[in-house]
């Protein structure tokens, strides 16, 4: 064991800054170097189970401009609703689905894109199910602490209505900020940091 007292404080966050890509997605921004492939670049392969979907979107600031330097990560269950994590105790997740992806926003348009699969449903607590969703984490210059949000699917209206997380959101119109647009297999999810239709962000 290491000689540390308990009751430590979490290391405080700082912004990822404008050059986060050097460390996290060097190949995506043309730096190259020692990594064969950027971590999180691909979620699926030929053997991944489930319905393929794409999620494209932008992160948009309080002046309605897309962030061209954001980095976006997603974490989601596989097609059967299982997470590819050693802490998943309900069963074995699809070994051909990582569940985690990471993309840099395009340096010109600010657009990001994930190729993934439709997530299955995951329980919340006491046997209540959550609607299918992907968790998002957003960092960028000007963001001091990474922002957590969730994307839900517009073609899952019944499940969304019963979702225990969405049910907590007040005022109710804000629920719509977490529902992607489009239809299977191509969804669009714009994340608005501030102002009109500001996306709901979570303290998880």
């Amino acid at each position: 064991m290491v000689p540390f007292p308990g009751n430590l404080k979490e290391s405080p966050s700082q912004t990822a800054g404008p050059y986060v890509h050097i460390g996290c997605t060097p190949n995506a921004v043309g730096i190259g170097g020692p990594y064969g492939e950027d971590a999180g670049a691909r979620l699926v392969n030929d053997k991944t189970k489930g319905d393929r979907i794409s999620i494209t979107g932008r992160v948009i600031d309080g002046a309605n401009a897309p962030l061209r330097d954001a980095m976006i990560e997603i974490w989601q269950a596989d097609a059967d609703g299982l997470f590819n994590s050693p802490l998943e105790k309900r069963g074995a997740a699809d070994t051909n689905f990582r569940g985690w992806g990471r993309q840099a926003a395009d340096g010109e348009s600010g657009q990001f894109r994930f190729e993934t699969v439709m997530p299955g449903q995951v329980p919340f607590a006491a046997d209540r199910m959550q609607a299918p969703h992907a968790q998002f984490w957003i960092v960028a210059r000007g963001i001091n602490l990474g922002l957590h949000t969730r994307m839900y699917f517009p073609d899952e209206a019944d499940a969304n209505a019963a979702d225990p997380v969405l049910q907590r959101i007040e005022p109710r119109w804000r629920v719509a900020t977490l529902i992607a647009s489009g239809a299977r297999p191509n969804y669009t999810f714009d994340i608005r940091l501030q102002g009109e239709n500001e996306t709901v962000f979570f303290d998880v």
Partner: protein
Amino acid sequence: MTQDAGAFFPRDLAWHPKAYAPEYKTSVLRSPSRALVSLPSTLGDTTGPVFGQNMIGELDNDLILNFARPGELPIGERIILHGHVIDENAKPVPRTLVEIWQANSGGRYRHKKDGYLAPLDPNFGGFGRTLTDDDGRFRFRTIKPGPYPWPNNANDWRPSHIHFSVFGSGFAQRLISQLYFEGDPHIRLCPIVNTIKDPAAIEQLTAKLDMNNTIPMDARAYRLDIVLRGRRSTMFENRPEGN
């Protein structure tokens, strides 16, 4: 090693920087104006991705060699940067991915959007990654980065710093931050550092000169321990009256 899947302690959002910190100008338009919605930990928060040793190249944690041309070395102060990743319960966080990135010794980043006039070092990329060992330890070899000017106030300079990204075992532990170097007079002047209000929190990001891990006639050493959120005991979870 056994791993606990319990819920995380809530984040102390007064310890972390606030989203809206106008002394750091870019935060003005990039900070939510509405309150965060607090949630209990769900399965998607208490689980997270794992990374295998097979993704880590032999030189990935050696920034002195991982971008250098054969037979050449980067210019600057050679340092070893090491520490533990632990959680708030002081439990080691084993086999988790730690990524770092930084400017070169002159304060120039290898990024097409960095237009600072200090030159690139042809033998320095400025990024590395490693997995912590079974005791949560990580270790890098690099060049101490230089300070650099940035367009915030008219004459702001960042202190020497290295960015770091850590995963932990649950997605809600995800953390990106920056480490500073003991004794740097730019630390107290920096608007980004000063988005953190508690001096003890700033101290927690300040790597200490570690003479015992220096290599004589070769490299200085700095140590920083990284603390991620701790997990509650699960022994009373899911009791009927609690839901």
